[in-house]
């Protein structure tokens, strides 16, 4: 019974730890910084719990204390979903824009994690030493024998909790129910030990508290005033919401991820084609605009890495000439995003429209056969993080291999201008890997920059010979002709960058997390308050 309780406790502990980030994600996201805070706080609390358990184990009835601790941990785990919103709001007010959020995401998630998870994790940490002592007293033998058995079963339980949480509980039950399952496992473990120790009163009390906790609601952020939430779902990767605003032909839908702040992952408007100002997707039509200036191409093959819910597809389908056969292969790591795309964003697979979910973009690139006219790179994790393995010299080299001579790389890079640390690092790396100048185009009314490069060719810029647009795409031209709208990054210019930035991002050294944090911290000085 004791060892079964230890197994259940191990499963419950890992479930709480893994689900902790998902519980906080609607306010603080799930970036590496948030993960580090959660893991760090839980480890610290476990350490304290181990010492506490060691002190408690010297009493006359360690099994009694074990039962009490497990029941208390169960109640703590059960109330966590209800406490998440009120605690998170203390450290993350509403309406914070992305460029103000860097410090809040780091410190706010640390404080919220400490408030919410320290008590439960300390209690769970104390389980191990008490279980070892109780086992050793019940079965005899040395501390090492008892400790080894307890640790082995606890670790097996942790494995069950780890895989079960990610692949079963969160996708099928959601975050709140996952915590209740963890609480239930801990309660059953505590009840089993307690009843064996004739502690029915404690078990009864725990049952009452669990029932009360079960009645409390979980309130993640919903739609803002003037918006309607069409869908909300927890995928294995993130919390996803489809939000609609406006009416009639002015309707817009956004796919928002986790904390979203003022960002969006995908966008839909009733009419396919170019979007209202402020959306970088329109720039993905620039290659078609330039190549179609003297007549539409017969065929145009596009590989989209980071398909999302299909915004780029909708833009291209709306602007492509009727004489052009448009073939698209889209890769999206989260299959739930594809499902939402089909349900709410008019994403329609079919002939010439191959959409693959559940596959990492780098892996897809390695498996891709044939040549494309254009590769669109729009892969982001956690709203603002470019996955490091999609920004390295090796990655851009792989992109070059699937592009025909004269083919185009177009990438969305979130950052505050061409001198932004992230924009500078990614564009310099792309230029170095491709061996061609990379052009950076400012996206109007946006924090974003579009990266354009061409294999064995030049990207037209204002005043150059190729600066002509296909009919129907000429409305992109005016904003792009304004002085300062373009920046050029040449191969070899990486050595001119700051000393504390690696010259070229590689699979071995790619500190994008650090660069992105620096980007947001420096945004105010570098881009917003130029004086």
């Amino acid at each position, binding site marked *: 019974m004791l060892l079964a309780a230890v197994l259940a406790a191990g499963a419950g502990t890992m479930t709480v730890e893994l689900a902790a980030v998902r519980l906080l994600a609607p306010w603080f996201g799930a970036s590496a910084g948030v993960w580090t805070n959660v893991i760090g*706080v839980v480890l*610290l*609390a476990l*350490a*304290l719990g181990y*010492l*506490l358990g*060691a*002190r408690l184990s*010297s009493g006359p009835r360690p099994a009694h204390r074990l039962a009490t601790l497990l029941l208390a941990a169960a109640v703590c785990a059960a109330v966590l979903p209800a406490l998440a919103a009120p605690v998170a709001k*203390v*450290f*993350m*007010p509403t*309406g*914070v*824009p992305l*460029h*103000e959020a860097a*410090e*809040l995401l780091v*410190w*706010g998630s*640390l*404080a*919220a994690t*400490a*408030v919410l998870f*320290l008590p439960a994790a300390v209690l769970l940490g104390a389980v191990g030493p008490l279980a070892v002592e109780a086992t050793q007293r019940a079965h005899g033998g040395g501390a090492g024998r008892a400790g080894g058995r307890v640790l082995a079963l606890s670790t097996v339980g942790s494995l069950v909790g780890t895989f079960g949480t990610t692949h079963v509980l969160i996708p099928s039950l959601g975050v709140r129910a996952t915590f209740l399952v963890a609480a239930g496992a801990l309660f059953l473990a505590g009840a089993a030990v307690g009843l064996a120790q004739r502690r029915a009163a404690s078990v009864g009390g725990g049952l009452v508290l669990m029932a009360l906790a079960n009645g409390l609601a979980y309130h993640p952020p919903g739609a803002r005033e003037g918006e309607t939430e069409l869908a909300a779902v927890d995928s294995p990767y993130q919390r996803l919401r489809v939000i609609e605003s406006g009416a009639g032909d002015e309707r817009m839908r956004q796919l928002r991820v986790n904390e979203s702040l003022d960002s969006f992952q995908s966008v839909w408007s009733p009419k396919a084609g170019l979007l209202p*100002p*402020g959306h970088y997707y329109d720039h993905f039509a620039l290659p078609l605009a330039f190549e179609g200036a003297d007549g539409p191409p017969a065929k145009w093959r596009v590989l989209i890495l980071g398909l999302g819910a299909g915004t780029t597809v909708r833009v291209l389908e709306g602007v492509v000439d009727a004489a052009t056969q448009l073939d698209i292969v889209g890769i999206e790591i989260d299959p739930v995003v594809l499902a939402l795309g089909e349900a709410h964003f008019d994403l329609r697979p079919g002939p010439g429209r191959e959409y693959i979910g559940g596959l990492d973009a780098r892996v897809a690139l390695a498996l891709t056969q044939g040549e494309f006219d254009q590769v669109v790179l729009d892969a982001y994790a956690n709203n603002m993080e470019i996955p490091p393995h999609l920004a390295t010299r090796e990655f851009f080299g792989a992109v070059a291999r699937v592009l025909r001579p004269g083919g185009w790389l177009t990438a969305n890079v979130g950052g505050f*201008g061409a001198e932004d640390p992230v924009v500078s690092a990614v564009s310099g790396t792309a230029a170095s890997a491709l061996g061609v100048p990379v052009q950076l185009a*400012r*996206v*109007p*009314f*946006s924090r974003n920059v579009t990266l354009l490069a061409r294999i064995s060719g030049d990207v037209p810029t*204002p005043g150059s010979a190729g600066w002509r647009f296909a009919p129907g795409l*000429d*409305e992109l*031209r*005016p*904003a792009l*002709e*304004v*002085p*300062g*709208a373009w920046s050029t990054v040449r191969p070899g210019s990486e050595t001119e960058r700051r000393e504390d930035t690696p010259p070229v991002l590689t699979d071995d050294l790619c500190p994008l997390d650090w660069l992105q944090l620096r980007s947001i911290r420096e945004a105010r000085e570098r*881009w*917003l*308050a*130029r*004086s």
Partner: protein
Amino acid sequence: MAGALLIAAACIALASASHAGAQDASAADDVHARVAAGDLVGALQRARDVHAPGLAARLEAEVLWSAGDLNGALAAAREGLVAAPNELALARLAADLSLALDLAHEARRHVTSLARDVALLPQGDSDRDWWLGQLAALESSTSAAERALEARDTALSRARSLGSILIAATLGALLVLLRPERRA
């Protein structure tokens, strides 16, 4: 003779200023027409040819704003206010741009400056009433932005303090429990 020459010079200067004013008004229309036609580069060049520095800066900022370069537009407005600090429309534009870029403190500076200049307009002037209405709207938006900024600063301060205290307390408890237990 000297007096006549002075009077003649003054008349020429006045006529030039009036002509420049008429030219500027025409240029403003030209700039707006070019923006509407999508000729933003031509509109910028035309704006920079305007004689009055305040108007030139305002037109340039408006063109850059229509091109989606809010940062550039604010920079142009700031430069214009250095040359023409009492240009009401330019101050209003700078305040609007500051709010769009979430720069509450800068918006407050422009609103304060604008309020000072509007107060100097003649009482009963219809322009004065209009500007007072504009100021009220700007004041409301700026106050909201300042409150949001204060909320963020408070939340950050709170998070730093409480997070640090809880981590320190946990570490302290660890150290206490690490001490050997006293045995009777």
